[in-house]
């Protein structure tokens, strides 16, 4: 039975290269199948994505305002951005948020999913509960949080008080507003957790059985079986989490009514982009912002993809 465990590792690491080489020869034959299977998306990409994307690149070199086509101004938008104080402030805020939120959401998400994967009575109810906050509309979430975090009568500071800590002015303080937002965003972690749960559901039961026979401890099973086989979806949530964090918009926008208060500490990149596009009639400028954002996320994703060869294990390889 120990062989089975090894087999799993074998799949993930060494076999990859061999099968890769073997498959190379088959490419010609299955190329057609591949394209056929991907055809709906290829068509969709051309129909619904290509034109808007190319348009926005073009807009980024113009003074397009939605209402009027504007003029071609070359790189002027990009140059102007470099001297825009709020642009840099929003970059700082966004990176701050991403750096803390993405790793936290992964650690907490995986931990929650593993807890929710235990065979305990009433698990269906527990799972539903953890999923619930994602269903509450943002407007409602925002108001609720302001109540909970209110330094005067809020529940959070009430609890802190009880254990002798004077809580900060969460949303009123430049220092604490971003941590508060990170906390709020973690509440809506239901979606990644479902993905992890689905990932856990895909792990062959036999691997655990094999490990049990070998007398592996819970910790060993977690680190040798569960986590390695969960890496494909962790990878997914890492990439999507990064993309999502850099495009953070709805919650802070609703909560601060678009103002990014206090003192622009909650003005995130896409919020500022939105104001430029729809409030100041500078869609060209906003498009330039979008493509700078694209380059940043693209570089980051490239790093994640390159590193993934070391830590993401696909059973299929």
């Amino acid at each position, binding site marked *: 039975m120990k062989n089975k465990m090894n087999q799993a590792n074998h799949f993930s690491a060494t076999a990859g290269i061999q099968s890769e080489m073997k498959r190379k020869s088959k490419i010609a034959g299955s190329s057609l199948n591949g394209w056929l299977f991907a055809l709906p998306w290829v068509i969709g990409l051309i129909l619904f994505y290509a034109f808007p994307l190319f348009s926005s690149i073009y807009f980024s070199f113009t003074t397009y305002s939605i*209402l009027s086509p504007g003029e071609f101004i070359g790189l002027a938008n990009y140059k102007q951005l470099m001297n825009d104080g709020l642009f840099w402030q929003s970059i700082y805020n966004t990176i701050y948020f991403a750096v803390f939120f993405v790793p936290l959401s992964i650690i907490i998400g995986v931990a929650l999913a593993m807890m929710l994967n235990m065979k305990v009575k009433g698990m269906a109810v527990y799972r539903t509960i953890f999923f619930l906050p994602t269903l509450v509309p943002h407007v409602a979430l925002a108001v609720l949080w302001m109540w909970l975090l209110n330094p005067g009568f809020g529940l959070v500071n009430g609890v802190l008080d009880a254990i002798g800590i004077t809580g900060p002015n969460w949303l009123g303080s430049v220092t604490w507003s971003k941590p508060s937002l990170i906390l709020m965003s973690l509440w809506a972690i239901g979606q990644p957790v479902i993905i992890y749960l689905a990932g856990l559901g895909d792990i062959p039961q036999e691997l655990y059985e094999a490990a049990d026979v070998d007398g592996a401890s819970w910790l060993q099973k977690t680190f040798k079986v569960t986590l390695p086989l969960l890496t494909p979806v962790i990878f997914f949530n890492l990439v999507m989490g990064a993309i999502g964090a850099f495009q953070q918009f709805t919650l802070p926008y609703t909560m601060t009514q678009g103002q990014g208060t206090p*003192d622009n500490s909650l003005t995130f990149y896409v919020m500022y982009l939105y104001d430029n596009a729809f409030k100041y009639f500078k869609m060209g400028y906003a498009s330039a912002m979008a493509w700078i954002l694209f380059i940043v996320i693209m570089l980051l994703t490239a790093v994640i993809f390159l590193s993934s060869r070391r830590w993401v294990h696909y059973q299929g390889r």
Partner: protein
Amino acid sequence: MNNTKLNKLILSIGLLMVSVLVACSSDEESGGSSSGDANTVEVWHSMTDTSGEAIEQVIEEFEQQNPDIKIEATYVANQGEGQNEKLLTAIAGGNPPDVAYFDRFEVAAWAAQGSLEPLTELAEQDGITEDNYYGFAWEEASFEDDLYAIPTTTDSRLLFYNKDHFEEVGLDPENPPTTLDELEAAAEKLTIKEGNRFERIGFIPWYGQGWFYGWGWSFGGDFYDPESGEVTADHPQNVEALEWMTEFGQEYGVEDIAGFTDSQGSGAMDPFVSGQLSMKIDGNFGVASLEKFAPDLNYGVTPIPTPTGDNFTTWSGGWSVVIPKGANNQDGAWEFLKFFGSEEGQRIFSETSRDFSVIESVNESLGYTEDPVFAEFINILPESNARPVMTEGSLYWNALADAVEASTRGNGTPQENLEKVTQQVTEALGE
């Protein structure tokens, strides 16, 4: 999974899809042709509740008087106050409504983009002039010598104060503060602090509708000269106003106040409603909200205190109706605009919506001047200001809000921050 079962499923889904497509396309036919044949005027508005009822009544009366014109009114979420995605896309797509209910604050910017039909000639023909309306409302409806909108509603801002709190701390509830010194003294008396936590705050200058425009004007400052196009955010009196706000904030601890009022500008969780704030600046629309959420609250309203205790002023915004560029039925649209902006249309609308009319005689005839609270709001209207009519109005607004935030938090002096605003807006105007 069972193969045949799945195949059946796919087949039935396919059939359903086809039927939906057919249904949708036939829908489109009927929808698309409607604006062509009859004399139909398509109206987009963002009004719900009492205002929603009011617009319906205006339409009903209009249709009765103009049996050959049919109004097709559609509620559109997020129209106005800087969120106009739908109207923007519709105009860009060349398929706008004939009439849009429109935030007057944005008329200048849209007009400058060539997105609104000029109404100057039509207004001249039908004898609609500045004299019909409050000066500031007409000012906001025009841009560079042309009229682009017919004003419909207005508002004003005053100091709300909790009479019970006044009595509790020994202040005369019938003699609210008129000077800033009195305001500060009252605020201090009304504030209850337990430890380092506020149980109640007397006053927060920037809470609710305490936007910087109001304070600047109350101090005798100004923001923009339409003649020369000069931006004067750093007008000496404006700087004084911001210095006063900053000192006020420092006295109470800006962060303590901010945590208290949360980061929401206004509305959702009003501490005035829950009795944690004794005085606030708010608009007449705040009255309706108080009636709804705290009908028993004993409060009064009074002009916003000034340094000298006289020369009271305020500022007003409000709504209007416009004809977007490229509208199909502009003649019908103009008829509706005219009716909505007439004394008759205004009376119908204002009576139900309880929004103030832009025509003084209408407000009088509806008895607003006899209501002790409403009268204060109406009486200050002749003294009211409109925010600068310029293409960068939204930028100016946000920049001033940022300057207040930055200054009160000690992030630059009021002078520096307001100079920055002047520079930023001037640059944007120059582009």
